């Protein structure tokens, strides 16, 4: 199993006694940003632990950046991992924690000091660097963990619920940091059960539920697979009532609602509806946008798990 994917797994399973945490997962996660979605207990953290080599598969295989992650320190030089747990080493200052993390990663004493200073600055903790980690707020600890994971400039960054419990400001800053790394070419695997977090970063998602892979791909691709469910399309136009009346006669349309500036349509055959709508709108100027609220990950998730 040789691959250019960031993560590739084949029939991967992990169980603890009688409890199956991850069940027969086969997926290829490409480079770039991928969101790992699922409710609590869906197997996200287990999957990430397998990616970092913290756990050994019970069955199946996993490769990360083309290598088996189990007890593979060489691979871990290329990976950064932000665990869900609170920042460790609460008795150290933020700076000392970063120096220690850098030394463990392989930086020599001088470089570790420089990397720690740079890491603190990057995550906005330069002024709090000499405070004890135990005195940091949750948001500051999340930033510190992010700095710890990225000191060595990993090729792949794995983030387990990095935004959990953060305030809006910390959330915004962390999203910027993640986006910044992605723009710089780092592949990112991000787990969350807060769907808009992922939506802000990527369209590419992997959905887990009860340890099984439920869907994998672009948000809209996944949505297209679900055409048995009615899909909502919103067309903003200068004359919603007229457009609504025209669309109501179409076979593809299940229902129509018109408000002041748009028509909201529910359709069972999105592809056919979009094709026909495109031709229709070309002939009638005055519309401003066509959007589908169902193309967001939250809607997809709702459809898939319920």
């Amino acid at each position, binding site marked *: 199993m040789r691959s250019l994917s960031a993560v590739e797994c084949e029939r991967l399973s992990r169980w603890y006694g009688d409890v199956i945490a991850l069940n027969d997962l086969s997926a290829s996660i490409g480079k770039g940003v991928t969101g790992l979605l699922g409710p609590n207990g869906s197997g996200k953290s287990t999957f990430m632990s397998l990616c*970092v*080599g*913290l756990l050994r598969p019970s069955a199946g295989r996993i490769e990360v950046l083309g290598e088996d992650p189990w007890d593979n320190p060489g691979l871990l030089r290329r990976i950064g*991992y932000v*665990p869900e747990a609170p920042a460790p080493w609460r008795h150290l200052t933020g700076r000392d924690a970063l120096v220690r993390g850098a*030394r463990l990663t392989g930086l020599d004493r001088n470089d570790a000091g420089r*990397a720690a200073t740079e890491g603190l600055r*990057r995550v*906005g903790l330069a002024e709090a660097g000499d405070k004890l980690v135990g005195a940091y707020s949750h948001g500051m600890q999340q930033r510190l963990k992010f700095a710890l994971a990225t000191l060595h400039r990993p090729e792949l960054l794995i983030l387990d619920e990095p935004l959990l419990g953060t305030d809006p400001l910390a959330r915004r800053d962390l999203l910027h940091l993640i986006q910044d790394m992605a723009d710089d070419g780092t592949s990112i695997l991000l787990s969350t059960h807060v769907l808009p977090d992922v939506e802000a970063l990527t369209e590419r998602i992997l959905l887990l539920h009860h340890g099984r892979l439920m869907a994998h791909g672009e948000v809209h691709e996944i949505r297209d697979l679900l055409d048995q469910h009615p899909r909502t399309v919103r067309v903003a136009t200068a004359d919603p009532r007229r457009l609504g009346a025209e669309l109501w006669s179409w076979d593809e349309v299940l229902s129509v609602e018109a408000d002041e500036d748009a028509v909201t349509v529910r359709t069972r055959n999105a592809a056919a509806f979009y094709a026909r709508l495109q031709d229709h709108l070309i002939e009638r100027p005055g519309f401003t946008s066509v959007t589908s609220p169902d193309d967001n990950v939250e809607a997809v998730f709702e459809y898939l798990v319920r």
Partner: protein
Amino acid sequence: MAPVPEGVGTYPRWRGRTETGSRLGIIVAQEIRVLSQNLWFLAAAVLGLGVVGAGSVMELVQYRQDGLAAHSWDRYTIMLDQLRWFALAVAAVAGPGLLEDARRGALELYLSRPVSRRAYLLGKALAVVAATLAVMALPVLFYYVASLAFYDEHPEAWHARAVAGGLAFSLLWTALAAGLALGLACVARRAVTATVGLFGGFLVLHFAATRLLGDILTEDAQWQVLSPFSATGRFHAWLFGTGADAAFPLLWALLLWGALTVLGWALMAWRHPRVRGEEPVRRRM
């Protein structure tokens, strides 16, 4: 995305060197630093080194100032016996650091770095061994230096055996205590269970072997070998040439010491489920 907020910098590329060697020294240093902030550890170490170690050395010096011309093996071996309980306490507190790592997230951090599982376990073990050994070995060295400084006359074979024998005895005890402390930490669910289990287990066994069985089987003092403390104490006779009328043969003591020591280290090497990737690394207790 909106512009980067104030105070949050852009992501730099790392252009420096990275070492590929073991991170063993860093792990040991980190663990000793963590231990030095544990009050129970400090209490055991300070009482061992300060009260027993320094107290014995001061007593030795005091005897000389009171006019005693020569010192004896007795004070020295009593000091070693007393130090063993404090070294055991140090090991019992330090060993469960393996469990604490899982609870505090440090294990997750270690194992997601370029640190092999072997290096992690070895680093933890070396830290526990170093702390335990120090409580016994440092007083041995100070006692010997004080004896040279203040006495002209020494017991028979003092120069040949005091330091070498004292260090060997310290190592024997350290191997047993640290191994069992680490081994118990790998099978226990809670740190306090491992600590109390080790120290309490030694106390109970010692009391049972030396008192209860002694009272029941009054003619048979050889049951004392069932106490790890008494069993390893038998090494005194062999190392320092004293205690020829010991209650049981040296071989028995050696067998018990070997069995317990191997058990402890084997448990640590093979039964740490989180290090072996058998359980989630993160653990809430």
